């Protein structure tokens, strides 16, 4: 990527006023879609993404069923009005790839062997896109899966880190994604301490690479706190809030 302007000012503030290790504002609401078995709506900076889970349910077509475990199906899709220029609603190659990495990021967290011959469908719709929609999508999908009561080993939290103006910063926004030097989306299971998604676009040396992974993992842990609170809020309401305050 070519550098056109400075993305970090002399006070260390980024284009949206954040410091290097600050996340954008995250808000997660659980159970927003009444018909779904589990759902979540996430606002991650300017991202607005809804995730819905259906299942475990019968597999159609039937030949796709697996006798020893459940089939997980994922779709990441952007609405035509989610971007600056209208996006063709047909799935692009980018969306096909993201659907795949998203499924692979979620699969390690699920006990699919508990539901043989069934399917779990995860639909992620991006209503408004800002940088980092795949991370926000995975984060919301994992909350929706928990909301659906699927047996899970851990929750999956996702966050990107990257290099902007030769500095490693957390949670790359849209401008930094387009004009910055490197973007590394990471998904992480905070209790099992395992990385389930790792991608990198852009050039990093070995120290920066290691630092980037560590920063992203830190970001994932912060995202996890928001996920946990959102789920607590739905299932235990204000009761827990009071307890936590004490």
């Amino acid at each position: 990527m070519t550098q056109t302007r400075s993305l970090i000012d002399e006070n260390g503030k980024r284009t949206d006023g954040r410091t290097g290790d600050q996340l954008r504002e995250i808000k997660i609401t659980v159970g927003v879609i009444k018909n779904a078995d589990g759902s979540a709506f996430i606002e991650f900076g300017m991202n607005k993404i809804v995730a819905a889970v259906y299942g475990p349910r019968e597999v159609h077509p039937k030949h796709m069923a697996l006798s020893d475990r459940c089939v997980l199906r994922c779709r990441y899709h952007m609405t035509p009005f989610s971007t600056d220029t209208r996006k063709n609603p047909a799935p692009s190659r980018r969306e096909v790839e993201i659907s795949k990495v998203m499924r692979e990021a979620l699969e390690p967290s699920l006990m699919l062997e508990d539901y043989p011959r069934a399917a779990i469908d995860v639909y992620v719709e991006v209503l408004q896109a800002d940088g980092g929609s795949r991370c926000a999508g995975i984060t919301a999908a994992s909350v929706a899966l928990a909301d659906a009561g699927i047996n899970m080993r851990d929750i999956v939290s996702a966050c990107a880190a990257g290099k902007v103006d030769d500095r490693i910063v957390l949670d790359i926004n849209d401008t930094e994604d387009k004009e910055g030097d490197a973007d590394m989306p990471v998904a992480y299971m905070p209790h099992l301490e395992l990385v389930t998604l790792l991608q990198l676009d852009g050039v990093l040396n070995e120290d920066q690479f290691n630092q980037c992974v560590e920063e992203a993992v830190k970001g994932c842990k912060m995202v996890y706190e928001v996920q946990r609170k959102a789920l607590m809020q739905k299932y235990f309401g204000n009761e827990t809030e009071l307890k936590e305050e004490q």
Partner: protein
Amino acid sequence: MSSSRRSTIIVEHLRKQQMWDSISKGKRLDGRALDEIRPIEIEVGLIKKANGSARVKIGNSEVVAGVKVETGEPFEGLENKGALILSAEVLPTASPYIEPGPPDEETVELARVVDRGIRESEMLDLSKLALIPGEIVYVIFVDCSVINADGNLFDATSYAAVSALMNSKLPVFEIRDRKAVDTGEKQNPPLTTVPVSITAVRIGESVILDPTAEEEACMDARITITTNSDQNFAAVQKGSTGAFTVEQLKRAAATARIKGEEIRAKLRESTKAGK
């Protein structure tokens, strides 16, 4: 929609057990060490009709890549740059499990990961490939065909695409009356670096390099790391349904740097010999 599925190759339980036992002792079923890459064969310039071409074999995996050059409109947002378009296809010749038809998600991922390695490392200096900025630019097609699949298609396809680009001669276009005209002359492409992708997979607690199709059928997780000539990282893609620890990732990254340098020397040597 992305759907989990069984592996295309079904490895018997006994064979799987044998593989696990063997790998835990530091040796693989085909006798290789854990970090040993199968012999690589590279032939360049075999397709005379292409502007550049290469055939790469890693063990039994075999990929042919061809470069074709045209002129056309630039991509939106990249008006002052040439356009690079990379495609990959796994041909029905490649294995009994592949059928003709539109690319499945694995093939889409293959093409995008190989593309990412070449694009993000800025192997081609695309800013030198604009004829009339915003109107007419060089359009470089790199098309890769997997003709036999025996694992590690990410690396095989990447080496084929990179070798084909290194082997290529671009036609010299001139602008006459705001139209691009082929002068019949040839030029070297504006290459800046040699990206090398290294794929490692985790089977149980061991991480091995250059997996065969059989090993891929037993893998827990995969990671493809592309380094450039400065030994920096340019692209990474984790794949498959397992996970890695942060430690394993750091180690895989260090390995990718060291092994990448060996492969880079090989790519440079083979493409020189072909000219």
